[in-house]
């Protein structure tokens, strides 16, 4: 068999220009559509209207009431759970500890029955309510693991 002489290879020059053009176009597109999105999360609340919720069977565990009062400049004045008032440093941490002792959490799955009602002053800054909800719904341990405490949260009816 005769093998063709392949020594006379032509030097093939690749045209790089169109590829680089397209690559830069792509790069520019991705750079412009890039946006840094902060991770957002939700606290899910199931709150049927008062008339609908009356028909549902009442929970056996007593309702816990969290009360948040506002100062005239809309900051947090006091935080209380039932009759217990949390003041001093880190009131929300105290609230969380109290809820943990009430729910009987041993890093378990939390209580499905327990319900917490939040009653906040009208003018209070919303961030305090989210802090209270954070303290009530769960906590993150030192290993970064999330533990749930109370999942059923509702707002007290508004007082005008």
């Amino acid at each position, binding site marked *: 068999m005769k093998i063709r002489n392949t020594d006379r290879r032509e030097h093939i020059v690749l045209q790089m220009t169109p590829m680089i053009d397209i690559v830069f176009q792509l790069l520019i597109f991705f750079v412009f559509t890039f946006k840094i999105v902060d991770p957002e*999360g939700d*606290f899910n609340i199931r709150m049927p209207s008062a008339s609908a919720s009356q028909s549902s069977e009442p929970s056996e565990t007593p309702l816990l009431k969290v009360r948040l009062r506002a100062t005239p400049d809309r900051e947090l004045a006091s935080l209380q759970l039932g009759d217990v008032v949390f003041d001093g440093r880190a009131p929300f941490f105290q609230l969380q500890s109290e809820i943990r002792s009430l729910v009987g959490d041993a890093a378990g799955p939390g209580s499905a029955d327990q319900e917490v009602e939040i009653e906040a002053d009208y003018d209070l800054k919303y961030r305090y309510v989210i802090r209270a909800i954070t303290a009530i719904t769960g906590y993150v341990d030192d290993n970064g693991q999330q533990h749930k405490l109370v999942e059923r949260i509702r707002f007290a009816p508004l007082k005008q």
Partner: protein
Amino acid sequence: MRIRPRGPRGIVEGDLTPMIDMTFQLIAFFMLVINFSDVEQDQRVTLPASELARPPEAPYEHPLTIHLTENDRFIYGGREVTQLAQLRSALLQETQIILRHTTKKLADVTVIIRADENAKTGLVQQVIQACQELEFERFALRGKFSKDEKIGEL
């Protein structure tokens, strides 16, 4: 003056390989981080931070987002609304669309409330109340995830 010839003139080709390498790396990076999800965000709202605010595992089937700004304005469907009554009528329209054109019940719709951290709590409650009157049941109070927002330090 005599100009000396500078030797043989040829086409000088720079080595393009490192540049193309870098460009492809950049494209790969941007392609991975690109987010096409239609996140309903608004610069007028600064969400309250929480260490427990983790993104939902699955997207909501029928989300409905209401923004509430620091200066008591509502943003719904891209429109800024100042009165609660206006928001209520916009929501009423939405309920009619949902009931007529989908098979979903209003109780399955999740109302996402993106309220500013300095918004009035009472106003958030009023929005919830208005939604309840229209028979919405599921609410999602949105916050931004922040590791620094430790409850023990607040």
